């Protein structure tokens, strides 16, 4: 009996935790951290520049010089030049942190290299799915002997576009806006089929498939409800930044009639040095030119003032953008999900689920609700069963209670679930008599983090009127430890 109760409690806990994870894993607005946004943008744009020029150097030799000069040109690099000038001598200090090594890394391949599984992959279907994963059309994850592939039609179209299968793709047609709201998943159980333990991708191994449609997604930054905020932002922040960028361009461009001779001389020498450099050392040359030599160029007080203003405007732009994205992160999501579970011995099930996620009180809390019902795809012959197997309602409210010194952010969670079983529960040996009826489960949980360790201690009290198999009330206290492996590994390998 204890084992049954424990299992049910674990299932409940898993359900509640999984809904919580959906909420807490939503992308958050950009964090400003301690690094000014202007420095962050300079690093990002400089890394991108180095990556592009290394790619040009490793490409065809025919137009190498032309392409190098085009890429390293004031027409596209005013932001980089202005932010390097604004940083002054401190720019050299972060040259080491510019990650030019990453350009040599292979992109892709990681998803297929999970390696920790003992499953063997065979056949053409896994190869096709693997190809889709490699090219960003699908993602995969392995749990036990189950491999799940997730994707959405827009991701597939984009992946095909990036491979040159589709010439041009724009994500703003009405059709793609609708497609963007759909996603699907296929789960294969490699323990099934004629070769258990080997993933063959055959239909017999397909254990479930699901389809999702976002009825409302206010966590999409381009949702119409944010149009006014973006419009104001682009007008006030974007246009000022562009205006000052245009003024700065003239100081670097000889044809403007207003150029600064020192900046023009630096630019020509830098461009020549980059053209002459090899792919192996061009990253260091670019960093030397932009982060060391450019900030040392003597410029007029007008230029000095302008670059300082420009850097401040980049910071203001970044803050304005982060403010809007903070609203977006608190937006409401309403999703419909259909899952077809294909069982080996029992009838297949269709589960229809409506999921709502919201952040009430200006994001001070997180609310998740589920409403679902399950039907039998087919009633077993001779069984006197209702086609409707059950319906469920569940809700969870997470309220951060604030920072506690030496502990961290404590979260209070209140959750409840109601389920109505239409018929007695089916077991492999037959029906469990008198198990139909209502099940109510409630949980109050306090999650205490161990500050800076990636470890959390959830303490909860769960109460229910009965379990799925036994009509008996229970109240149970749970105490556990959870590990955030990402957080722990990031400390081991910063």
């Amino acid at each position: 009996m204890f084992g049954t109760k424990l299992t049910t409690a674990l299932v409940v806990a898993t359900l509640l935790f999984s809904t919580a994870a959906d909420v807490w894993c939503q992308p958050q607005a950009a964090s400003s951290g301690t690094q000014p946004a202007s420095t962050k943008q300079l690093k990002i744009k400089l890394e991108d520049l180095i990556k592009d020029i290394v790619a040009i150097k490793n490409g065809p030799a025919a137009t190498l010089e032309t392409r190098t000069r085009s890429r390293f040109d004031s027409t596209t690099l005013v932001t980089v030049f202005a932010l390097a000038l604004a940083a002054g001598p401190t720019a050299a200090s972060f040259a080491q942190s510019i990650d030019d090594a990453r350009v040599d890394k292979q992109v892709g391949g990681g998803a297929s290299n999970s390696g920790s599984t003992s499953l063997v992959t065979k056949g053409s279907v896994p190869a096709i799915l693997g190809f889709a994963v490699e090219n960003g059309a699908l993602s995969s994850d392995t749990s036990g002997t189950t491999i799940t592939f997730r994707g959405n039609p827009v991701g597939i179209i984009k992946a095909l576009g990036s491979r040159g299968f589709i010439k041009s793709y724009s994500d703003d047609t009405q059709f793609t806006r609708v497609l963007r709201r759909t996603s699907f998943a296929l789960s294969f159980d490699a323990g099934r089929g004629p070769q258990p333990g080997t993933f063959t991708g055959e239909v017999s191994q397909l254990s479930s498939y699901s389809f999702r449609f976002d009825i409302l997604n206010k966590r999409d930054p381009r949702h119409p409800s944010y149009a006014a905020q973006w419009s104001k932002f682009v007008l006030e922040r974007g246009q000022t930044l562009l205006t000052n960028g245009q003024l700065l361009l003239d100081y670097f461009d000889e044809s403007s009639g207003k150029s600064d001779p020192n900046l023009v001389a630096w630019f020509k020498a830098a461009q020549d040095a980059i053209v002459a450099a090899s792919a192996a050392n061009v990253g260091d040359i670019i960093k030397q030119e932009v982060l060391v030599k450019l900030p040392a160029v003597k410029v007029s007080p007008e230029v000095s003032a302008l670059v300082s203003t420009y850097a401040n405007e980049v910071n203001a732009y970044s803050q304005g953008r982060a403010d809007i994205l903070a609203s977006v992160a608190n937006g409401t999501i309403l999703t419909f999900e259909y899952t077809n579970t294909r069982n080996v011995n029992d009838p297949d099930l269709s589960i229809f689920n409506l999921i709502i996620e919201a952040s009430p009180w200006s994001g001070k809390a997180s609310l998740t609700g589920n409403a679902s019902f399950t039907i039998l795809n087919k009633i077993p012959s001779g069984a006197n069963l209702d086609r409707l197997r059950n319906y469920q309602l569940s809700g969870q409210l997470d309220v951060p209670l604030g920072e506690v010194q030496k502990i961290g952010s404590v979260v209070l969670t209140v959750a409840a679930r109601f389920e109505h079983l239409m018929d007695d529960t089916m077991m492999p040996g037959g029906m469990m008599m008198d198990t139909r009826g209502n099940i109510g489960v409630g949980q109050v949980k306090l999650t205490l983090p161990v500050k800076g360790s990636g470890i959390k201690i959830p303490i909860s009290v769960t109460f229910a009127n009965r379990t799925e198999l036994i009509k008996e009330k229970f109240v149970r206290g749970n105490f556990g430890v959870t590990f955030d492996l990402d957080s722990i590994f990031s400390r081991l390998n910063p």
Partner: protein
Amino acid sequence: MKIVGGNPLRLECEAGETVTVRVLNSIKILDLVNYKWDGPDNLPGPTHKDTPISGAIDRRRTLGVQINYPEDSGGSFTMQATGDHGGDVSTHQDEQADGEEFSQFFYIFTVAQ
């Protein structure tokens, strides 16, 4: 219109030629694009990405363009510039680097001597 030195943002036009710049296609960019012709006027200002920008080239002129990214990755765009006297068609493409918040670039139009 002629592309100078293989750079699609440096363009040489015939005197009086009207150039048109447009977002040809895009992924994950804001609907509003910042544009600015040189000079004291802040024109044309933020414009919907489906609306082309035109201007007559009778002297050296610059057109600033700023693409704004609402998400932290996955953005890209292709810009096209054409002249009403024919000649080259300029295409400038860029992909958002991870964490990049905006892309600012400038067309420099000069008049052929």
